[in-house]
């Protein structure tokens, strides 16, 4: 009889634990004192590990920004490299606190995966990388060609749409990781490699002969990339959303990692509000008043992050283009921080 009761107790206990709701991600991150961040398995400019094991990139800077805002220290991040196929499950299951892995914001993902996109940090689009000696000048000449592509991406859908629309045929060869896709392209398994344009520049650098390949002018889809969080935790959603905005607003207000300390005491009202010496923006997020100050001093504003990782300060040399501030010919626009 004793055995039976034990079994019943185990079952009831098991049921009870599984029914308890997840604690808020903010409390969770604070109590474990690090942020668990899902990144790519290695993509130059966005999330990449150097020989010493340090991660850097535009996506990594989002993680660092959130860690700086929440924990006061941008280095308190544990990175979890994920393939495109694994990324959403890792976030849904609670393995990571935030997914910052060049992920395209689509309506289906936003509404059916139980996830929320917290903003856009890079406006991208699907492009084509071809070998120069193929002599192709435009994507419209690619009828009958074979494409190398990474599995589990929105590119898979974009490329099918494009070829169907142009009434051209093509073959698609899908690979698991970005590196495999590149080696498939290099071995000649396919005629062109297709992915988000920013990735094409990154992949091109990794080729044995970068000069032998060109990125075609066509951009065939909208691929706004941004961080993702679980749905149903609004406090955490707000924090990630406003960390992204603070970085953009920082550039707009002229706050940089170099001048943040001075501006904190003697800046304009908008700058002081951002840096926490005026108003209580931090408190409303459940954070300390110096949350954005920590982001500015430890990570820098959007422009600094962009130039360091993908812009002129990097091997990628991508121009700001539409990723410039709205008053500078781009479409970056942070809602009002007041």
């Amino acid at each position, binding site marked *: 009889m004793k055995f039976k009761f034990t079994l019943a107790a185990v079952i009831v206990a098991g049921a009870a634990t599984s029914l308890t709701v997840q604690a808020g991600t903010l409390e969770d991150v604070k109590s474990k004192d690090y942020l668990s961040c899902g990144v790519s398995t290695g993509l130059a400019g966005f999330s990449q590990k150097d020989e010493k094991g340090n991660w850097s990139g535009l996506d990594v800077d989002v993680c660092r920004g959130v860690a700086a805002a929440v924990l006061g220290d941008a280095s308190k991040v544990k990175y979890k490299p994920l393939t495109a196929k694994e990324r959403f499950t890792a976030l849904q299951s609670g393995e990571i606190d935030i997914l910052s892995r060049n992920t395209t914001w689509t309506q289906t993902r936003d509404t059916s995966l*139980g996830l929320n996109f917290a903003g856009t940090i890079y406006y991208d689009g699907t492009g084509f990388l071809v070998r120069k000696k193929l002599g192709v000048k435009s994507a419209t000449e690619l009828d009958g060609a074979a494409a190398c592509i990474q599995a589990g991406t929105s590119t898979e859908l974009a490329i099918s749409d494009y070829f169907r629309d142009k009434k051209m045929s093509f073959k698609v060869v899908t690979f698991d990781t970005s590196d495999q896709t590149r080696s498939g392209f290099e071995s000649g398994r396919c005629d062109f490699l297709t992915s988000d344009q920013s990735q094409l520049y990154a992949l091109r650098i990794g080729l044995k002969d970068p000069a032998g390949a060109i990125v075609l002018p066509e951009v065939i889809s909208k691929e706004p990339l941004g961080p993702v969080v679980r749905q149903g935790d609004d406090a955490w959603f707000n924090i990630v959303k406003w960390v992204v905005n603070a970085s953009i607003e920082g550039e707009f207000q002229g706050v940089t990692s170099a001048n943040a300390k001075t501006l904190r005491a003697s800046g304009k009202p908008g700058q002081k509000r951002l840096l926490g010496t005026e108003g209580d923006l931090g408190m409303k997020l459940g954070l300390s008043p110096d949350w954005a100050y920590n982001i500015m001093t430890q990570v820098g504003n959007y422009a600094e992050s962009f130039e360091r990782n993908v812009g002129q300060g990097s091997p990628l040399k991508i121009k700001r283009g539409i990723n410039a501030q709205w008053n500078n010919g781009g479409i970056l626009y942070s809602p009002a921080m007041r």
Partner: protein
Amino acid sequence: MSVPPNYIQTSKSRGSFFNNPANRALIYQFLLLMGLGYFFYIIISNTMSNMEARGIKSGISFLGETAGFDILMSLIPYDSTHTYGKTFIVGLLNTLLVSVIGIFLATIIGFIMGVAHFSRNWLISKSSTVFIETFRNIPLLLQVFFWYFAVLSSLPSARQSLSIGEAFFLNVRGLYLPHLAGDEGSVVVYGAVFIAITSIIALHRFAKIQQEKTGKQLPVLRLSLAILIVLPLFATLIMGTPFHWELPVLKGFNYQGGTTIIPELIALSLALSIYTGAFIAEAVRAGVQSVPHGQTEAARSIGMNEKQIMKLIIVPQAMRVISPLLNSEYQSLVKNSTLATAIGYPDLFTVFVGTTLNQTGQAIEIVFMTMAVYFAINMFISVLMNLFDKKVSLITR
């Protein structure tokens, strides 16, 4: 005798219903079953409510939605306007294709290598040992990578293809073969092939009965071959050769026309069949060694030749040992075919658990469906192999 026997009365009077061991066993089993049922009910309902609370879509209605992505290889007509349900079928067929090819080649490789072990030729028997030990001891994933990235990826590009007589082409995009296309009247030839095969089966039956009755042996193999060649050839000539070859031709980026075998399929089939073949070779060796040497000597002493000894004495007895081992090797091969995902061969795992899962986000439904498929395939193999096992097992009278 209207009074029931004594012992029943005492057992009834001595204890209650619950003290009866049979009843108690039933009650415990019932309670355990209820407990288990409750356990699974909690898990399932909990998952469902959690998924709903987090706004994750569930249900299988997604199978009817448009997929919107393309697949490298499909045995049935498929394009991106078809549904997610169709991607399941496409993946399933590709899995079955590579499994059937793998099982077929692995069996041949296994039997050749297993028998080669017993060759009196030192070189042959040692090469078999080297083959078995090499491929059995290297992880399968590594072998898949070896064939795909080391061997097939280093083939020349489409324009510099290796070719045999401008009909067969091999390049990094795959193997291009001429395709035999049937014209009007080709149906007659297919019919002739069918008749040839049926009559060969009938011939085998007849030869067996004849031998049991009279002891005479017919030259079955030669007769079968003759029927198989002459009948279709005759039909072809009568119908005025109703076939033509469709040759692959370099057009634009790739070869068009003919039959294309993609390198992913070649690499995966090679890796699976060689790896499993090495294990089957060991099973064959074990089977042959399990037949006592006395059997061979006895067969020689009644005047059988080496071929007859192999066919009539050793193989039937060895099969009893080999057959159960074959069963599990075949099952492993089917499961191992999921390594396709590493090189992008569009099998069920790559297409359905890979892309479809990612585009729809419906992990639980998709993983469950896929598990059910592999379970069903392996159950099917198991049933077939058990039938085979019964056929070769020792019949005791």
